[in-house]
């Protein structure tokens, strides 16, 4: 059965490539990019193997391994999303033993680029410990336990996150949790900033991590190299216990999903009065599209969760900005980060419509109305966040001298983001979670395309914003004229780019809307 699941995952991957060239290109890009990182790490591991400092080896392995587990647990939720091809609910109707299914689904995560890369890295870590046979053995056992922790933690965390976000109260809780997280990141960054990363600090960090569930599995081999046999054994036992407990939690989650397949909505079917935004905004196609987009931002976790993140993320700069002297330039960057995230975030908006986009195509909607209408909710967000963050810095003790530069550049960046989005969302869309799917799911074989489109869009936004960014940098070095110049020039250039891009995007939209719809159909 486990073999069946693995073969199923392989077949799904291969069929994905047969369906679209883009997926293949994405895979190749992913291999180049991820492969480079993996090779770099492997070289580092080989270097560790052939140097004499056991403490250094232990530190690197512990910190790196803990980072690996944390990455597997958090990245799917924060960035990539988890692959839903082997979504447990799809197996609800088959008579498969739940434990077999639990194991098979976990192992299937190894089929794919992140899985293969992680296995290679773990092998490298084992190799780094081969200076004594026993250390190598311990490293191997620890590596397997650590790898298991990676795989299971990613399932458990994203499963729990999806369950939490399915309810309205859960989303509020998640919002507050996200805020606390960023408030915690701030001091951490400040701490690292303050004095830099030194060897003592890393060793101290490794000492702490080695006694947490993140580090147990990875620290054991280092203990052997340093001659602490008892500790090594204890850590391996603890690591095994961690993997076992995580597995039991995952199995519980799986069983509860299999026995109560989730209902169609996840959103209690409470009645809503009247037309909502549709009554408030102008009764034109553009107004209607704006109202629809706005309604979705409120009701659909695929929009409102990223929106919360966008609002909160720049606040992460608050603490390092306030902590040190001379670093209040960081405060002036906050509105820029907010502007970038909001503007750039729109580049795949049509993808989120999924095939419901047919209504626009069948209605013969005008391109300008579609392009501009879609930007309404993020436009409102930008209107609040960009001036808000520009003001927040000086109000909390930053320098008012940066304010005009921060505001002008922020407006430029958000308008350039909208400009890029107006064109790209009429050209190429990548697969995103379908309506009703967990906002943390991703499409098999689509990570590469997603990454490529995101990179191109990000690069385009930065390139368009270059004049404003250069003036911003000049202003940070204390030239007041640049600050005032960018306050005027930034919005003007941004507006010009936006107007041109909407024209171009509208024209592309008129010609390509049917092809865009078929793209969306093929992504289902």
């Amino acid at each position, binding site marked *: 059965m486990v073999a069946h699941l693995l073969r199923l995952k392989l077949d799904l991957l291969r069929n994905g490539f047969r369906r679209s060239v883009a997926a293949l290109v994405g895979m190749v890009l992913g291999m180049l990019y991820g492969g480079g990182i993996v090779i770099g790490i492997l070289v580092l591991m080989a270097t560790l193997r052939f140097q004499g400092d056991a403490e250094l080896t232990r530190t690197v392995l512990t910190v790196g391994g803990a980072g690996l587990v944390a990455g597997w647990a958090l990245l799917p939720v924060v960035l990539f999303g988890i692959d839903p091809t082997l979504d447990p609910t799809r197996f609800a109707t088959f008579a498969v033993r739940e434990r077999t299914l639990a194991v098979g689904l976990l192992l299937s995560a190894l089929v794919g680029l992140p899985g293969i890369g992680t296995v290679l890295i773990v092998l490298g870590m084992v190799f780094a410990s081969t200076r004594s046979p026993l250390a190598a053995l311990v490293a191997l056992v620890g590596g397997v336990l650590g790898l298991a922790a990676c795989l299971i933690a990613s399932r458990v965390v994203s499963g729990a996150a999806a369950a939490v976000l399915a309810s309205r109260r859960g989303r509020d809780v998640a919002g507050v949790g996200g805020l606390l997280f960023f408030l915690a990141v701030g001091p951490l960054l400040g701490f690292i900033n303050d004095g830099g990363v030194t060897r003592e600090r890393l060793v101290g960090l490794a000492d702490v991590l080695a006694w947490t569930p993140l580090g147990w599995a990875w620290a054991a081999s280092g203990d052997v190299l340093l001659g602490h046999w008892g500790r090594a054994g204890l850590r391996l036992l603890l690591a095994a216990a961690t993997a076992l407990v995580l597995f039991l939690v995952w199995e519980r989650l799986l069983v509860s999903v299999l026995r109560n397949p989730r209902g169609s909505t996840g959103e209690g079917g409470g009645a809503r009065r*009247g037309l909502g935004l*549709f009554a408030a905004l102008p*009764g034109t196609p553009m*107004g209607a599209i704006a109202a629809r987009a706005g309604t*979705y931002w409120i009701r659909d976790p695929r929009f409102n969760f990223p929106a919360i993140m966008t609002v909160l993320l720049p606040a992460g700069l608050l603490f390092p900005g306030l902590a040190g002297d001379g670093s209040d330039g960081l405060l002036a960057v906050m509105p820029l980060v907010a502007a970038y995230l909001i503007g750039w975030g729109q580049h795949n908006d049509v993808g989120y419509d999924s*095939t419901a986009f047919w*209504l626009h195509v*069948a209605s*013969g909607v005008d391109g300008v109305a579609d392009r501009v209408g879609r930007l309404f909710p993020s436009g409102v967000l930008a209107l609040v966040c960009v001036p808000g963050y520009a003001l927040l810095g000086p109000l909390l003790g930053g320098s008012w001298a940066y304010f005009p530069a921060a505001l002008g550049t922020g407006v430029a960046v958000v308008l350039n983001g909208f400009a890029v989005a107006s064109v790209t969302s009429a050209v190429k869309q990548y697969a995103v979670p379908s309506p009703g799917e967990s906002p943390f799911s991703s499409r098999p074989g689509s990570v590469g395309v997603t990454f490529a489109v995101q990179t191109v869009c990000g690069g385009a936004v930065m390139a368009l914003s270059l004049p404003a960014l250069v003036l911003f940098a000049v202003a940070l070095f204390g030239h007041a004229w640049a600050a005032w110049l960018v306050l005027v020039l930034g919005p003007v250039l941004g507006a010009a780019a936006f107007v041109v891009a909407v024209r171009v995007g509208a024209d592309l939209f008129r010609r390509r809307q049917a092809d865009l719809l078929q793209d969306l159909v093929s992504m289902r």
Partner: protein
Amino acid sequence: MPDDQIALGLRGLTKRFGDMVAVDHLDLDVPRGSFFGLVGPNGAGKTTTLSMATGLLRPDQGTAHVLGADVWSDPVAAKARIGVLPDGLRLFDRLTGRQLVTYAGLLRGMDRELVRQRTDELLAALGLTDAAEKLVIDYSAGMTKKVTLACALIHAPRLLVLDEPFEAVDPVSARTIRGILEDFAANGGTVVLSSHVMDLVERICSHVAIIAAGQVRAHGTVDDVRAGMSLDDRFLDLVGGQTDVEGLAWLRTSSD
């Protein structure tokens, strides 16, 4: 047939998906005021044909005209005359029923007050008034078809193109939908619908075309096409295919 009597004219429509030819140089004329049924086996190309006729799928070759307007070179004029009910595509289902129909109307550039009036009337006629404030995602299959039909009707189109309008619809909703469509056709509108339920097409359609392997095998009034047989038999006759069940003895549990 003179051109001004054709509601929907398809000429040489062709669509390939990779090596598979889904629609193969298909010609079809739908007369104005007709209630036109498109029947064919699964995979015959019905949905592909209707998608190309309504501007949702770009043909590789061929043209589609709606009341004289070319769907692909003059899409705005053509689309203003068509109401579409596609099969297998999503809706903006996080909107309430009332919001969705309003959205469809406003997208067509209609006046807000007119949209409000027609939305109320359509929801009432389709029996959706009680569910108007519920999210479409919470609707049953039949209610979803009905609210999509309301979206297709709101701008008073002259041609309705409906892909499987009766699939997964209970008899009560089916009767309601049928009543509205017959009323629409009786008042000069043209209805094109696809289905694989022969009985239904035989009962409600004035004209029919049988499609198989991407081509029209027979078309005309229902009486012409069935040529004295039942439509079902005539269909099997034209399309071919095996109807006797062979094997599967183990399924007949009484044989134990």
